[in-house]
């Protein structure tokens, strides 16, 4: 169904960013605009979600050019839920930024760049054209380059060199694979590509292109042999920036993989085997990395990698149940990862260090905050009533169906390693006796802040923790959404007919 308003999430973020540019030197106006407009974009995303949920897939052909020729924007439930999660995280981070960011970073234009980043993310989720997806990826990375170097401290610059290099390399590989795909099919529209790739005779070149796409997206989502840029850079920027990076940037790669490998390249035996072993090693290497690190944020960095593996496992199993699990895990992971980086930032703001060896006694001094922080930390493990648990049930269940025991083992071991890591964090940061630390001179501690700023640091954590709790206790609804998405991903005919018009798929 054609609906021109589905690009509203993109346009609205662009509008917000441009409006913010007009108030470059007015910090307070920027903060107010950013929060209000994030709230509005959250309601737009909710509207989009309810629209796609009730009325099916919505499309718009840019400039009125019919589907395989013009650029198409498609909003199915998967896109809509990703846009919704982006808006939720954007809202939380724009509040969190007020308390946690130094004023000088706001002066350098944190808020406009944040909204450009959100625009890029929304665009990547909504586009139905593979080259347009590349363009949105570039919008995302250029905004993230600015955010990661904002402030220009030594550690940030060192992290940024690795981050920039790997992301540019990933874009080059992605563009190369698009070029080969265009040479093979003469089309860029994803729905059209789905039909044309299936008809191709040259299966070997199709497989090579698929692997190139896998590498390109893999670098962006930090899978096993390609993840080294992530632990080297994600701990560098200010907590508000790492929170949005951790929540959304690696997940765009996973989203693109789920989209491309269910729509364009249906994974054959070789691809599934490749993805499943990559998933196993991603889980193990991320988990082992998390075990040996003592810096709170670096532990979180490795946990991101570990949990990317779970979603890859869902993709490699490639059954409807497995994809349900992968999508559920994606929904849960975006919220929880954003939240734990904000928690890390809050702990730093209170105690003045990220080092777990020096931290301690948090439970004694801040019992309420500790209990609040327990919610996202324990849902990361997948403790039964909390949100991570249900996704893993689906993944393991379908692992038994397809008899991929190596994946089941890796998922269980990965959860176990996460459990040990979180237990270590809990005992080191929250339970152990605190030693006196020399006070940092150039930092304003949490207790020195005005109450309103203290609330802006705590409120987003409560907000995201409540949503996590909802996902855990109201799992029924999220499972229904995930099953719907998995159904649409497996039966790509819905997507294709929505874009190209009904009866375009000839039965073979």
């Amino acid at each position, binding site marked *: 169904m054609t609906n021109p308003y589905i690009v509203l999430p993109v346009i609205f973020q662009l509008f917000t960013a441009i409006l913010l540019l007009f108030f470059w030197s007015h910090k307070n106006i920027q903060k107010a605009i950013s929060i209000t407009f994030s709230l509005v974009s959250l309601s737009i995303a909710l509207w989009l979600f309810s629209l796609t949920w009730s009325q099916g897939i919505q499309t718009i052909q840019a400039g009125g050019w019919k589907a395989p020729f013009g650029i198409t924007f498609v909003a199915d439930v998967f896109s809509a839920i990703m846009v919704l999660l982006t808006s939720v995280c954007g809202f939380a981070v724009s509040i969190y930024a007020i308390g946690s960011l130094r004023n000088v970073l706001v002066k350098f234009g944190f808020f406009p760049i944040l909204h450009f980043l959100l625009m890029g993310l929304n665009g990547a989720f909504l586009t139905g054209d593979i080259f347009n997806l590349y363009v949105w990826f570039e919008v995302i990375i*250029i905004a993230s380059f600015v955010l990661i170097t904002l402030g220009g401290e030594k550690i940030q*610059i*060192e992290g940024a*060199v690795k981050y920039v*290099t790997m992301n540019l390399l990933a874009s080059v590989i992605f563009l190369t694979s698009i070029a*080969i795909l265009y040479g093979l099919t003469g089309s860029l529209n994803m729905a059209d590509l789905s039909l044309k790739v299936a008809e191709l005779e040259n299966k070997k070149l199709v497989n090579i292109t698929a692997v190139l796409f896998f590498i390109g997206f893999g670098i962006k989502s930090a899978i096993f042999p390609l993840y080294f840029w992530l632990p080297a850079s994600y701990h560098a920027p200010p907590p508000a920036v790492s929170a949005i990076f951790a929540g959304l940037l690696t997940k765009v790669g996973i989203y693109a993989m789920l989209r491309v490998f269910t729509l364009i390249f249906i994974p054959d035996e070789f691809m599934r085997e490749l993805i499943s072993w990559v998933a196993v090693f991603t889980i193990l290497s991320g988990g082992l990395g998390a075990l040996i690190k003592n*810096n709170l944020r670096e532990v979180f960095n490795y946990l991101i990698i570990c949990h990317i593996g779970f979603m890859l496992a869902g993709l490699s199993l490639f059954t409807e149940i497995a994809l349900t699990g992968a999508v559920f895990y994606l929904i849960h992971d975006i919220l929880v990862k954003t939240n734990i980086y904000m928690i890390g930032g809050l702990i730093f703001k209170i105690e003045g260090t*990220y080092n777990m060896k020096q931290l301690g006694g948090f439970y004694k001094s801040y019992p309420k905050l500790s209990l609040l922080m327990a919610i996202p930390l324990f849902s990361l493990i997948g403790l039964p009533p909390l949100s991570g648990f249900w996704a893993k049930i689906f993944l393991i269940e379908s692992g038994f169906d397809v008899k991929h025991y190596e994946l089941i083992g890796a998922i269980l071991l990965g959860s176990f390693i996460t459990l040990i890591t979180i237990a270590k964090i809990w005992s080191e940061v929250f339970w152990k006796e605190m030693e006196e630390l020399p006070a940092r001179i150039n930092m304003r501690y949490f207790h020195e802040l005005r109450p309103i700023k203290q609330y802006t640091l705590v409120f987003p954590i409560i907000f995201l923790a409540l949503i996590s709790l909802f996902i855990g206790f109201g799992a029924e609804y999220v499972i229904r959404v995930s099953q719907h998405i998995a159904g649409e991903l497996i039966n790509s005919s819905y997507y294709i007919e929505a874009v190209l018009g009904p009866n375009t798929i000839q039965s073979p």
Partner: protein
Amino acid sequence: MEILLIFIIGLLYASGIYMMLRRSLVKLIIGLVLLGHGVNMLIFLVGRIVKGNPPIIHDSVKILTDIYADPIPQALILTAIVISFGLQSFAIILIKKTYTVVKTDDLDELNPTGEEL
């Protein structure tokens, strides 16, 4: 023409990756630039090289039956050039900043991951 382009593209990719593997920051950027050019040439090549046939439908016919030049690769390359121009200028500013902050051009001198914080 195609054969020549294939070799040029291969050479650009190979030299780009070789330059990226060197230890100098400046060579890293040069490598990225070369890779970007390689990709652009690749898009140009896979769009099929056609000489002297425009992609214009004549008044008398409904569809193109003759060999025609595909305009899309040009549009794609143009977009890719503009994007890579922006990214590369950012990267150049970044290495200048890196040089002033870290005071080195050697990638191995960069701190792997800072434990102290």
